[in-house]
């Protein structure tokens, strides 16, 4: 990791999240996302399936060979994070892991969930939480 890396921050179901800018292709309004496979992050987070929010958007990301659109309530910012901004995910004991979470990051006065795209967008997760393609 270089000393400062860009991250896109966004909100989903009341949670603050961040994804490495190097994984983000573009941010689209929902109606612009025709043809992209969408991933329902709200439902992955255990909330109800995402419903239309006024600033709802699709964050188009890469995970290996895949290109997926993450449905977010709002894209909030592009920020620069350095090593000092990251807070380790604590150990919860030997049987609990949170693979989709690469770290927590201090953004403003809250901790954001820094998502690991490769662990989030696994074939099994896509099978369970994809909402299919937006019709063209």
């Amino acid at each position, binding site marked *: 990791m270089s000393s400062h890396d860009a991250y896109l921050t966004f909100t989903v179901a*009341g*949670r603050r999240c961040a994804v490495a800018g190097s994984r983000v292709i573009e941010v689209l309004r929902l109606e612009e996302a025709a043809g992209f496979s969408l991933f329902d992050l709200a439902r*992955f*987070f*255990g909330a109800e399936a995402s419903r239309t929010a006024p600033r709802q958007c699709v964050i188009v990301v890469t995970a290996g060979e895949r290109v997926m659109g993450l449905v977010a309530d709002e894209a909030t910012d592009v920020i620069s994070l350095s090593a000092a901004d990251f*807070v*380790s*995910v*604590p*150990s*919860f*004991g*030997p*049987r*609990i892991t*949170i693979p*989709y*979470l690469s770290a*927590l990051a201090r953004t403003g006065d*809250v*901790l954001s*969930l820094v998502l690991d795209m490769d662990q989030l967008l696994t074939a099994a997760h896509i099978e369970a939480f994809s909402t299919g393609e937006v019709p063209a």
Partner: protein
Amino acid sequence: MSVQWLVATVAGTVVAIRLRDVQEIIDSMGVTLLPGLPAAIPGVLDWRNRAIPLIDLGAVCGERPRHDRRNAVIATAGSHILALLIDSIDGIHDGEEIGDDIRHIDPGAVLEALA
């Protein structure tokens, strides 16, 4: 030497934690919810510039899990530090024995049972 207990209430259950295991009692601000954990562990608490596991003692006592209880007891469990969500602090109890109607909470055993 006498044993001291922190007595608290959560979801109507009175619980007692050995005072030697208690680091601090705080307002439960700074909760970050993390999906994918057992129901009794809603996420982490931002405490002294680190994220520590947040455990709902109400859920541990068999009640419906909540993440919005007012207070958190910061407790040590071996090498771990935990935030235990409670509703209110009742006081300090002195003595080896705690009443039968008070549930003894061992933070290490709580984490072991959940994780």
